[in-house]
């Protein structure tokens, strides 16, 4: 009789511990979920900003590319672009030298 009672008590104790663990895990899950949602909202906002940055970069790159193209005909534009060397390097462009005469003509 004592054995059976102790087995029942043991099972009830294990059940109580499991219930407590379930409550703790549920609380942890809800907290982690709220943190993840906050991070996701922040990431969405940053992603929108990144898209905007990318679009602005593309526009600036196109503008600089047109300017570089025009600088082949205009030394004044080439001189202007030389002052913006770092930006052109950031945009993946290279400013031309100021004097178009320095460029060697194609022998063909």
């Amino acid at each position, binding site marked *: 009789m004592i054995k059976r009672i102790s087995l029942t008590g043991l099972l009830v104790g294990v059940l109580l511990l499991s219930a407590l663990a379930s409550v703790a*895990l549920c609380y*942890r*899950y809800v907290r982690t979920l709220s943190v993840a949602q906050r*991070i996701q909202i922040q990431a969405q906002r940053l*992603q929108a900003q990144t898209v905007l*940055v990318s679009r602005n970069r593309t526009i600036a790159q196109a503008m600089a590319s047109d*300017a570089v193209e025009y600088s082949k005909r*205009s030394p004044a534009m080439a001189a202007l672009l030389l002052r913006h060397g770092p*930006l052109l390097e*950031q945009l993946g462009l290279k400013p031309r030298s100021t004097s178009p005469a320095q460029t060697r003509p194609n022998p063909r």
Partner: protein
Amino acid sequence: MTTPDPNKTPGSNPSNAGPGPASWAEPIDSDPSNPPTGAPLPRRDPPPAVESLASLASSVRSLRAMFQIALVALILALAVLNVFFLLQVRNLRIQAYELQVTAVKMLEVVGDYETNSVPLIQRLSTELHQFAERTPEFAPVMARYPVVTNRPRASTNAPAPTAPKPAGR
């Protein structure tokens, strides 16, 4: 001679009963707790009270077994639930960490753009527009690009705000 104990019940010990009514000293045949000496015990069925006691004990045993089975089932169900919660929390933490790493990278990109690139782009745009004002040949090229300012441009073709999705399915 000792005096009879007045507290003793009559008939409990017939040999020491002493004087009294004749029915007290005689053995009672109908009483089962006082069988005649030397006579064999009669075989009788257990009384209904004993039968019900045995049935009750059996019921208690059965109920206890069922209770223990129910406890084990509940413990197993809770263990499965705990494992599910544990895996979910683990996956969620991994996803949140990856998302945070991505967010930090995006924050660096946006911060670097706003700190380093925006002033340079503004300066280039301003100078190119000024150059276009002086050079009519270059003006049509720059007309395609807006003047970059610090203030946000008022967009005429802004996307219409979307209605929030309903919470339920």
